[in-house]
C-alpha cells in the first residue's frame, strides 16, 4: 500500500503556526512579486478567492473582508517542509519527496488491518510536531492514494486519513471523483474525455485499455491501470540529481540599465552555482536569457538567449558569473524595458569527472576553498550573508515582497517571542 501525505493549505498553515491570531480568519499567500494567490485558507476559499487569482482582481474582496495577506516566505516554508518530511520518514523506509508540501510513502511493511490506525498516528505526529495539519490518503497505488487524500480532506469524519483497501471503497471513490481531478490527467485530456461523456474517474476506468492507449498514450494507460488497483508507478526514494539548474525571476519593476540587470543575473547565477555545488556537480555551459514584458504590447518587445560554453566544467560562482556576463553583454540591446532575466546551468557532470584544459590559468583549488567558505557561511548565517560584490544590494531589481513574515524557525533574530 502507498500513502500520499500533504499539508492542508500548507503555506497558510505555516504562517498560522507562529501567529494564532490568523486562526479562523481568511488568509492568502501571494506568489513572487506579490502577483497572485498561491495558497488560501478555507475561509478565503469560501469568499470565492480562486487559486492563482490575480491580487488586483480580488483586492476588493480582500479589503471588504479583512483578508490577511502574506508574501511567499520561502525560507519558512522550506524549513517547515523539511520538518514534515523528516517526521514522515519515521513511518516508512521509503519516502518520495514529491513537492514542497507532499510526499509519497511506501507502506508495504504495515499490516493491512492496522493501516488506518497507523495512518492516524502519522497524521497526529506530523500535525502535533510541526503545527501544520496534514491529510493522508492510503491505497494500493499512488494514483489512488492521491485520490484517497482528497477524501481525507473533504470529509471531517475521516479525521484526515482515508484508506481505500477494498474494491467497494475504490469504486465508490472513483464514482465520486471528477475526471479532471485525477492525478496525471491534464486539462486537455480531461476536456477530451468529457466531450465523449466520460465525466468521472469511474467512467474513465470503463473505457477499453486499447482506446486509452491509442488516445492517451502509455501515460494515460498507466493511470488507467493504477485506478483499477494495479500499481505501475513506484515510490522513488531518491530524487535524481538535476541535469540542468535554472534560476530566473521577474524584476520588481521594469529595467533598462545593463549594469542593474547584470547584478540580478549575477545573483541568480550565484544561487544556481550554490545548488550545483550542493549536488557536487560542475557545469560545462550556461544559458542566459533576457526578456521584456510580453503583456505590455504597447511597448517594444525583445527576447533573446545565448549559450556560453566554458573551457573547463566548473562550479565556481566567480568563474560562472564571468561567462554569464559575456553572454548577457551579447544579447542585451538598449532601448527596451526588461522584465525578466534568468540563467540555466547546462551539461552538468560530477565534480570528479571534470577534464582539465591545457591552457587553464584558473587556480581551481583556491576557487574551491573560497566557495566552501561562502557556502558554509551562508548555511550558517543565511543566504547572501557572504557574497561577491558584483551581486549588489538588489535595491533596483529585487522582487516585491511587502508582506513577508519573519523566518521564525531559522533566523535567531526572528525566533518568536514568548511572554
Amino acid at each position: 500500500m502507498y500513502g500520499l501525505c500533504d499539508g492542508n493549505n500548507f503555506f497558510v498553515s505555516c504562517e498560522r503556526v507562529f501567529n494564532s491570531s490568523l486562526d479562523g480568519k481568511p488568509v492568502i499567500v501571494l506568489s513572487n512579486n506579490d502577483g497572485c494567490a498561491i495558497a488560501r485558507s478555507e475561509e478565503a476559499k469560501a469568499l470565492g478567492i480562486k487559486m492563482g487569482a490575480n491580487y488586483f482582481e480580488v483586492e476588493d474582496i480582500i479589503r471588504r473582508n479583512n483578508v490577511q495577506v502574506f508574501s511567499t516566505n520561502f525560507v519558512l516554508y522550506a524549513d517547515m517542509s523539511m520538518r514534515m518530511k523528516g517526521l514522515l520518514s519515521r513511518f516508512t523506509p521509503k519516502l518520495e519527496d514529491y513537492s514542497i508540501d507532499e510526499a509519497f510513502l511506501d507502506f508495504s511493511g504495515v499490516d493491512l488491518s492496522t493501516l488506518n490506525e497507523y495512518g492516524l498516528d502519522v497524521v497526529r505526529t506530523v500535525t502535533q510536531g510541526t503545527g501544520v495539519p496534514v491529510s493522508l490518503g492510503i491505497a494500493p497505488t499512488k494514483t489512488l492514494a492521491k485520490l484517497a487524500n482528497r477524501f481525507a480532506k473533504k470529509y471531517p469524519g475521516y479525521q484526515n486519513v482515508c484508506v481505500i483497501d477494498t474494491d467497494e471503497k475504490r469504486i465508490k471513490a472513483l464514482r465520486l471523483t471528477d475526471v479532471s481531478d485525477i492525478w496525471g490527467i491534464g486539462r486537455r485530456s480531461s476536456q477530451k474525455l468529457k466531450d465523449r461523456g466520460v465525466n468521472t474517474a469511474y467512467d474513465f476506468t470503463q473505457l477499453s485499455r486499447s482506446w486509452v492507449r491509442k488516445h492517451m498514450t502509455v501515460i494515460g494507460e498507466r493511470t488507467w491501470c493504477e485506478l483499477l488497483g494495479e500499481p505501475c508507478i513506484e515510490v522513488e526514494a531518491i530524487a535524481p540529481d538535476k541535469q540542468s539548474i535554472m534560476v530566473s525571476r521577474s524584476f520588481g519593476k521594469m529595467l533598462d540599465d545593463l549594469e542593474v540587470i547584470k547584478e540580478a543575473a549575477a545573483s541568480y547565477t550565484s544561487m544556481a552555482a550554490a545548488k550545483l555545488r550542493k549536488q557536487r556537480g560542475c557545469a560545462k555551459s550556461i544559458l542566459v536569457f533576457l526578456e521584456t514584458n510580453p503583456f505590455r504590447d504597447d511597448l517594444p518587445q525583445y527576447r533573446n538567449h545565448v549559450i556560453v560554453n566554458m573551457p573547463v566544467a566548473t562550479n565556481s560562482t566567480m568563474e560562472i558569473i564571468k561567462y554569464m556576463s559575456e553572454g548577457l553583454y551579447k544579447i542585451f540591446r538598449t532601448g527596451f524595458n526588461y522584465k525578466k532575466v534568468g540563467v540555466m546551468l547546462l551539461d552538468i557532470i560530477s565534480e570528479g569527472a571534470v577534464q582539465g584544459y591545457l591552457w587553464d590559468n584558473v587556480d581551481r583549488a583556491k576557487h574551491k576553498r573560497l566557495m566552501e567558505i561562502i557556502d558554509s557561511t551562508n548555511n550558517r548565517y543565511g543566504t547572501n550573508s557572504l557574497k561577491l560584490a558584483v551581486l549588489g544590494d538588489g535595491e533596483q531589481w529585487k522582487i516585491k515582497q511587502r508582506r513577508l513574515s519573519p523566518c521564525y524557525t531559522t533566523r535567531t533574530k526572528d525566533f518568536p517571542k514568548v511572554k
Partner: protein
Amino acid sequence: MKTINEQLNKLIPIAEELLHMEVDLYASPVKAGFPSEAYNYIEDGIDFNKLLVKSKESTFCLHVGGNSLSGDGIFEGDLLVVDKLEEPYENAILIFSIDGEFTMKRLEYRQGHVALLSSNPEFEPIIINEGEELKRWGVVKYVIKKF
C-alpha cells in the same frame, strides 16, 4: 611610538602566518618518533544539538520576552528550546498560543476550569473556562541563558 610600530610590524607577518596556518585538531602533531597512544582515544567533540535536541523536526527556539516565570529563574533575554512533540510531564512549563501571542505557563486543573500559572507573584493566573479553547503549542525542554 616609533619603536612600538617597529615591534608591531615585526609581529604582523607572524600573525598573518598564524592566520593562514591549517590546524588539524585530530592529527598527531608528532612528525617523527612514536605517536602517543592517546590519539587512539579521540572522541567526538561536544555537540549541543545532540545534548539539547531529542526530536530535531519538532524542536523550535523562542526568545523570552517577559518575566512571568521569574520564580523559575527564567528572564527576558533567555532562549527556550521547545519541543512540540513532547508529552507534558508533571509540573512541565508549557507554551500556549493565545490571540496571536505566545505565553509560557504551568497548567493546573481545577474544578470546572483550568488555570495557567506564572511563577512571578505579580502575574495573576489566567483562567480558561470549560468550552473555551486552549491549544498547547509545545513543552519547554531547556532554557539557555547568557551570563
